């Protein structure tokens, strides 16, 4: 494992030096470590440090908690190097929870020299080493997740627990599932969990209890005199693509974009989803088209779009049919489409405006010409 880490760090150093050759770039890898506290725990880790400038002096420093127990193999590098960090923790740490050791590196920038009228940027990197110290007495942290499913499938859920206290404990839990405040099912159990141990409870609810729809699950964990309450929402999907919104106003006598918002109620991927759109007037087909195919991820909502050719459609109200085809199923909806007279475009407005101005100018010139002619005639 140490050798593998060493290989990773060597690769990191090489890649870093090749990839980033501008001044002021500094990196460290791996980027994070964490350990559970044990009395007298000893660890040695290797961290790669690299700057894009092979001549750049790099200073190494320690910050954060527990500094007095940490040794660094080096306080500085030039360009790059492998930093070996070793620590031996004491028999006891007073502060429970996460204690963070910071291993830092920074570019040592020299402010003196020819370019002294500048503000210079220097990079620094800090890698945390988190040491988790158990809480006094009994203490649990938990996560609860209920997974989306499809109708006819069991509903799986997981409870992950970590005993982060100093003592072993017994706990019990109750899971309840609600649909619109109505209790559908509940389950309960209890276990023993030793300190510094984790437990993953993985169970399922029987599919027969669930119709397609949205549900809320609650979890209550009780241990000692404490209680944890968590909840999660989940969906039981059905194989159906719903049309939730669509474009219904168009400009007559032109090609219009048409957008259909489609929601997949199925908790699996559906491929080959496309829409067919047709416009009719008293049974006569005026226009129709198919969109390209889309892929829908589980329970995804997104827009399907295409272009409706309304070049032969006059202003008015028409009957539209939107049909969503997905794999071997389809769902259609009859809707009203409204086609309105085209508003003048900005270009047309400008063109007409310009023509009007030119006509006015010509008229003014003619008037002036006539006026001057008349004046000259009077003089004669």
């Amino acid at each position, binding site marked *: 494992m140490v050798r593998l880490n060493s290989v*990773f*760090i060597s690769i*990191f150093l090489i890649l*870093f030096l090749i*990839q*980033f050759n*501008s*001044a*002021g*770039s*500094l*990196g*460290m*890898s*791996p*980027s*994070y470590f964490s350990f559970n506290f044990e009395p007298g725990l000893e660890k040695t880790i290797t961290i790669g440090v690299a700057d*894009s400038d092979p001549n750049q002096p790099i200073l190494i420093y320690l910050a954060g908690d527990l500094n007095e127990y940490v040794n660094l193999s080096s306080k500085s590098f030039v360009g790059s190097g492998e930093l070996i960090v070793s620590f031996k923790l004491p028999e006891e740490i007073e502060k429970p929870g996460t204690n963070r050791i*910071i291993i*830092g590196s*920074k*570019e040592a*920038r020299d*402010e003196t020299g020819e*370019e*002294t*009228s*500048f*503000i*210079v*940027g*220097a*990079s*620094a*990197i*800090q*890698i*945390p080493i988190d040491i988790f110290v158990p809480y006094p007495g009994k203490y649990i942290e938990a996560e609860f997740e209920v997974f989306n499913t499809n109708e006819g499938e069991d509903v799986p859920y997981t409870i992950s627990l970590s005993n982060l206290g100093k003592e072993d404990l017994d706990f019990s839990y109750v899971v309840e599932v609600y649909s619109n405040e109505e209790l559908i099912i509940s389950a309960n159990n209890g276990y023993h969990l030793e300190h510094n141990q984790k437990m993953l409870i993985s169970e399922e609810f029987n599919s027969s209890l669930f119709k397609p729809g949205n549900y809320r699950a609650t979890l209550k964990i009780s241990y000692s005199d404490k209680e944890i309450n968590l909840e999660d929402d989940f969906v039981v999907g059905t194989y159906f693509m719903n049309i939730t919104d669509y474009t219904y106003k168009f400009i007559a006598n032109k*090609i219009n*974009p048409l957008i259909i918002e489609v929601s997949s109620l199925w908790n699996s991927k559906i*491929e080959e989803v496309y829409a067919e759109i047709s416009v009719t007037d008293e049974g006569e087909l005026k226009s129709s088209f198919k969109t*390209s*195919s*889309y*892929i829908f991820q589980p329970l995804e909502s997104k827009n399907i779009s295409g*272009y409706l050719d309304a070049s032969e459609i006059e202003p008015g109200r028409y009957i539209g049919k939107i049909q969503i085809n997905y794999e071997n199923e389809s769902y259609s909806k009859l809707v009203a489409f409204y086609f309105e007279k085209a508003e003048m475009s900005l*270009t047309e407005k*400008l*063109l007409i405006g*310009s023509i009007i101005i*030119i006509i006015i*100018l*010509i008229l003014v*010139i003619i008037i002036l010409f006539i006026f001057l002619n008349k004046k000259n005639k009077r003089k004669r």
Partner: protein
Amino acid sequence: MAAKRKNSRKDSSNSLYDIIIYVSLILIVFSLFFIGFSMTGKVVDTDSAIVNVTISGTTAINFTTNFLNLGAGTVNVGSAAATIDSDGNVVGGTGWGNTGNLTLENIGNTNVSLDISFGKSAAEYIGGTSPEYHFKFNNKEAGSCTPADGKSLDSWIATTKTNTTICSSFSFEDNKDEINIGIKLVIPSDSIAGTRSDVVTATATTV
């Protein structure tokens, strides 16, 4: 002469028509381009493959622009101080006016929190009576920096020699991993003369 005037009017009218026609043609070309662009449709990639690879986390940042030259100048006679910044604004001074920023990029593969510290205080860097030394930061690429509590983009902040957390999260994702850092100085008329320099240190910590 009258015939010439008529011709001249005719010419100008023609050129006006020409301009209208050219402008219309350009607008038509642009409109067609945009219609064509919208109608291209989506290309759906149906090929897929799974490649297993372990990527070690790397925390790395890069000052893609790591020199900021505010230029040279003097405080105007009669003015108590000159205020200059890296946006090129100069009030109460002559000279200066350089524009630019320090630019910082997250080139690693982890989000980081970002702290900024300066090597010198305002008194050490500028000197004189009531000098001021400020910095600001903004996203060169939108969404790069989530400002830390109490900090906001494009607001001047007094510099400190200790770390000031500016981004609670500085993203590593492409197209949202770069920020700019600007500087503002208030230089009193009795400030230290000569060239001055300072180092701004950006510290990235894995989050």
